[in-house]
Each structure stands twice: as structure tokens, then as C-alpha cells.
């Protein structure tokens, strides 16, 4: 593999890792507060549809982004209602949300646009444009670092940079603010938080809302930046890969960046090469597809450092009387 090809693969790694990273951080906030969320996929899908539909109608990507966040947060609210208020099974609620989004997006897309469950293709201002960072072209002749800066770092859409900034931001919120401490405590030992006079329910609702917001960004990125419009089931399992990355990262923000970049790289390689020759042995593309899941199972099995979820995860909190 030569240098330009390598750059191209890494460039598409960044693009493909971005929705995974956003969804992974979304799951991080929710699960750290003790609310399991296997509905990341559904929330992303709803956001992708809402953002694409709004951007197609209004021609404004910003209104699309808002609508995407709104759609995702509505589903997050539903998850909060069933998981926090009505103390239902969080996993079942997540499954229901995934199906709700998978069905409703296509039904509505068909009704509104009559294009077989797609939205019209987004053009011009209805999409996020690539941003060229300062001096990208001037620095391009510099050997190695120039192309890396011009191709890999510069030239992405706004949401890619937002996602990158959200990693330190999440770390700061979770580990350096009072809210973050409470959020983590609610996921480990809600009784203690309750005793301290902090509302467990309110903290968990806040975490679920942040999760909805970030899934909204992820879905909007898919439909208005990575691709130009919504199509049926366009998340294609990314919500589950993000979930896998979350476990891989052991519920920590910086590691989430690493895990999603790794899984993004696998996707980028699978996209570019159908079969890979490694030391004379052909590696079929399906292995690359399955690798994130296999790695997650290995991690979960505890053979490579044990992944321990937040202690109160999945347990509804019943206030003592």
C-alpha cells in the first residue's frame, strides 16, 4: 500500500468513525447513569430521517440538524419514560425503539416523498460542506505532514470536528464537574446519591437527554454529511457497533475514541478491499465485517482485560419510603 492510498483509507476511517464515536459517547452518558441503551441504532435512524426530511423540505441543513436532534430526543424521552418513570425493562424498551424507528421512518418517508422509503437527494445548503482548514493548501507541499494535514485533518464536515471536540468535553463533564460525578454515582450506587439529596430520576433523565442529543448528531451526520439523504435502514447496524465500541472502551471517553477509530478503520478497509491477502492467506471481506463483533465478544469474555459495566446498570431505582 502506498502513501496516498494509506491516506485515503485513513481519511475514510475518520469519516466512518465519526457516527460511531457520536453514538458511542451517547451510549456512554446513558449507561454511565445506569440506563442501558440498545436503542442507539433506532435513535440514529430517526435522527437521520428527521434531518434529511427537514433539510430536503426547507433546504437548510441547520434546520435539518435541529429536527434530527429533536427526533432522536423524542425517542430518548420515550426510553426515559419506560426505563425511569415506569421502571420497565430497559433492554426491551431499547428493542422497541429500534423497531419503532425502523418502521416509522420508512412509513413516513414513503408517505411524504413517495420515493420507496427514501428522502430526495440533498443538494447545496441542505448538506454539510467540507471545511478546509487554514493553510491546508499552502502546507500541502511539505513532505508527509503536508498531505496528512491537507487530506486527513482538513477537509471534513463540521460534525467531524464537533465529534472530535466532544471527546475531551465528555471527559471533562464526566470527571471534572459536579454533574458528572453525580451521573457516574447514579450509575454505580443510586441509593447513595439519593441519600445525599440529589434526585436519581432527574440525573438519569438528564443523561438520557444527552444521549438523545448525541445520537441526533450521529444520525444527522449520516444523512446530511456522510451521505446525501435518508434511505431505508441507513444506519446498517452502526448503533450496535457503537455499543460494541462502548464495551471495548470499558465505558470511558478517550478509549471510546480509540475503539471507534479502530472499528472505523475496519469498515474503511472492508469498503475498499474485497479480499485481503495476509501472508498468503486470503482474508474474506466478511471477516472484516464481523471483526468488531468478534473483538467485542472476546473483550466481554474477559480474556483481554475485563469489561465491567456500571454496577447499577439496567436496574430501575425505587425510592425508599
Amino acid at each position, binding site marked *: 500500500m502506498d502513501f496516498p492510498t494509506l491516506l485515503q483509507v485513513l481519511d475514510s476511517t475518520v469519516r466512518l468513525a465519526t457516527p460511531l464515536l457520536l453514538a458511542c459517547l451517547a451510549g456512554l452518558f446513558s449507561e454511565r447513569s445506569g440506563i442501558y441503551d*440498545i436503542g442507539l441504532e433506532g435513535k440514529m435512524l430517526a435522527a437521520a430521517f428527521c434531518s434529511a426530511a427537514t433539510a430536503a423540505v426547507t433546504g437548510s441543513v441547520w434546520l435539518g440538524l435541529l429536527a434530527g436532534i429533536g427526533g432522536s430526543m423524542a425517542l430518548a424521552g420515550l426510553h426515559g*419514560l419506560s426505563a425511569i418513570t415506569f421502571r420497565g425493562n430497559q*433492554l426491551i424498551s431499547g428493542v422497541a425503539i429500534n423497531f419503532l424507528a425502523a418502521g416509522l421512518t420508512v412509513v413516513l418517508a414513503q408517505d411524504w416523498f413517495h420515493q420507496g*422509503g427514501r428522502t430526495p437527494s440533498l443538494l447545496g445548503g441542505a448538506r454539510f460542506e467540507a471545511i478546509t482548514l487554514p493553510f491546508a493548501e499552502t502546507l500541502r507541499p511539505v513532505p508527509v505532514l503536508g498531505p496528512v494535514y491537507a487530506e486527513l485533518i482538513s477537509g471534513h464536515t463540521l460534525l467531524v470536528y464537533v465529534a472530535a471536540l466532544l471527546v475531551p468535553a465528555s471527559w471533562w463533564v464526566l470527571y471534572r464537574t459536579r454533574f458528572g460525578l453525580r451521573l457516574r454515582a447514579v450509575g454505580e450506587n443510586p441509593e447513595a446519591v439519593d441519600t445525599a439529596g440529589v434526585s436519581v430520576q432527574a440525573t438519569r433523565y438528564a443523561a438520557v437527554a444527552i444521549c438523545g442529543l448525541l445520537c441526533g448528531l450521529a444520525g444527522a451526520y449520516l444523512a446530511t454529511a456522510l451521505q446525501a439523504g435518508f434511505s431505508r435502514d441507513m444506519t446498517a447496524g452502526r448503533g450496535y457497533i457503537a455499543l460494541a465500541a462502548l464495551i471495548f472502551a470499558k465505558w470511558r471517553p478517550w478509549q471510546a475514541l480509540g475503539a471507534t477509530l479502530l472499528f472505523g478503520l475496519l469498515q474503511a478497509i472492508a469498503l475498499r478491499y474485497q479480499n485481503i491477502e495476509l501472508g498468503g492467506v486470503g482474508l474474506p471481506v466478511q*471477516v472484516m465485517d464481523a471483526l468488531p463483533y468478534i473483538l467485542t465478544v472476546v473483550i466481554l469474555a474477559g480474556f483481554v482485560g475485563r469489561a465491567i459495566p456500571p454496577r447499577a446498570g439496567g436496574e430501575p431505582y425505587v425510592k425508599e419510603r
Partner: protein
Amino acid sequence: MSAMPKWADLVLIPLISLSLAALLSALVILGIGEDPVAAVRMMVTGALGSTYAWGYTLYYATNFIFTGLAVSVAFHARLFNIGGEGQATLGGLGVALVCLALPWPHWALALPAAALGAALFGAAWAAIPAWLQARRGSHIVITTIMFNFIAASLLNYLLVNVLRPVGSMDPSTARFADGTHLPTLHDLLAPFGIAFSKAAPANISFLLALAASVAVWLLIWRSRLGYEIRALGHSEPAAIYAGIRPVRTVMWAMLISGALAGLMAVNTVMGEAERLVLNSVEGAGFIGIAVALMGRNHPVGVFLAAILFGFLYQGGAELALWTDIPRELIVVIQALVILFTGALDNMVRMPLERLFLALQKGPA
């Protein structure tokens, strides 16, 4: 303490939840500018109006009985087996390998062998998540989700690179020999003088599904293992104190669950397609979750819920054929059923419990 009589728990709550789901579905149909009453009428005609329609409804219901039973057996041990999809995929591989391995002379020989293959492959695919849950404490929901994706990739690889006949472009196996052709309901009912549609895919697997329902009932409520599964599901410390070995029980519950999900493939792969294609499961593994929740994890309930979903599936296909309502409407209805009977159960249960408590206090 039970605030409610048993009938309210078993009949009233599911009915209310189902009505809520139906109401919201009707609103969705209204929202896209269609007439819900006309839609229901079309679904009833399309799914129940002829023996052809019944043949499809029962064909789908057969799948859902198997996957619903699979989810409910695991639920009894308080395990959420979300991997029915992958286990059924592997079950299909088992059926295909059995059917292609020998020149089967008659279906009566091929059926038990294929069912065994399906059950073994399904159980094997459930075995690793089960072992990881029982021994290493890895969350079974996550591992079974991961195994669904791994199963899809594995089958994709096998169909494209290994099992595809030479010269064929289609990622599927060769057609099975005629000796593996299962009798359809038409063939089965003809000797009794009942005319049943020849074109519909419902076949003898439906009877296999009924037998599986009875077997699950015997297992859960009439066997020692079933008692251990339920005891473990109610309270692990109590079960351990009673001398029940949790690892062994979890393994058995998941192996049986996986085998039941795998058996679904007898219906789809052997009974209908007569070759193994990509994505032959078509989401039936996930519908099993809705079926088990609605059926309250009891074989009778699972059977009724599976018939209902068979009706929805076939009726939804008819709607998509004749109106502008896409097939995905069924996915919405399925989601609402899971939501109301599963996740939002307490929303219906809490006010009802209060009502019954007030009623009990009233006359006394």
C-alpha cells in the same frame, strides 16, 4: 402480595396493552392519510379470508411459534435471548447441510434429520453466549446481539464462497432434492376431504411447532429442569441455596432456546424455499421477542400471539400490495406491541393495581 386476580394479570393487562398498541397503529394509519377501518378489513380478507390466506398466516405463525418459544424459555431463567435471529440463521445452515448431504428417499426420513440438524446448529450458536454468561458473567444480551451479526457474516461467507453451486451467481445453496419436499397443509388435509390451497407455503412444520409448544409446556411446568429454570429466574441466591447449579441451568435454558430458534429453519428453508438463501430468517427472531412478551411466556399465549403476528404479517403484505401503506407498518405495530406489553407494562399495571385494591377495600 397480589393486588390483582389472576385473570386480570393474564388477560386484562395484555388486552389493554394490545388495545393501546392498536389505537396508536390506527393513528399512524390515519396520519399517513389512509382509512384504518378499510385497512383492517383488507388485512382480515388478505390474511384470513381464504385457505390461501390462512396458508400464509399459518406459515408465518409457525416461525413465530418457534422463535417465541425460544425467547420465553430463556425468559423463564431471566435470560434475554435476543439472538434468535442468529440462531435461526445457523439452524438454516444445519437444515441445508443435512438436506444436501444425502439423497433423501422420503421426507419422513429427511424431516427428523433436518430438525435435528437445525436444533443442533441453533443450540451450538447459543452455546457460546450461554457459556460466557454462565462462566464469565458477560451480558447475554450484548453477546447474543454480536452473535447475530457474526452469524450473518458467516452465512454470507459460506453462501458466497463455499456452498454456492459452480456457475451460479446467486448467493444460495443448490436446490434440495425432491425427497426432502415437506408435505404442505394441502397434502395433509386432502385425505380428510378438506380442500386447502395448494399454493400456500404452510406445511407440516406447523404440526412440529405445535408439538414443540407442548414439549415446552411439559419442560417448564412438568419437569425437574423446568423447575430449576424457573427457580433460577425467580431468585438466583434461593436457587443456589436449594442446590440448583446455576451454570448448568443457564446452559440448558439457552441450549434449548437456541435449538427452538434453530428449528424455525425447518419451516422456512426446508418447507418453503427448499434451498438456503441469504437472510432467510427475515426478522422472525426479533418478532419472537414480541410474541413471548405478549404470550406471557406461556406456550398457549405464545401460540395465540404467533397467530396474531402471522395475521399481521400476511395482512401487512396484502396492504403493501394493494395500497400505498408500506410493509414497514407491521414493524411499527410490532414495536408498539413490544413497547406496551414489555417496556411500558407498569404504565398499565400500576393504575390497575390501584383500582383493584380500591375495589377490594370498598365492599369489605
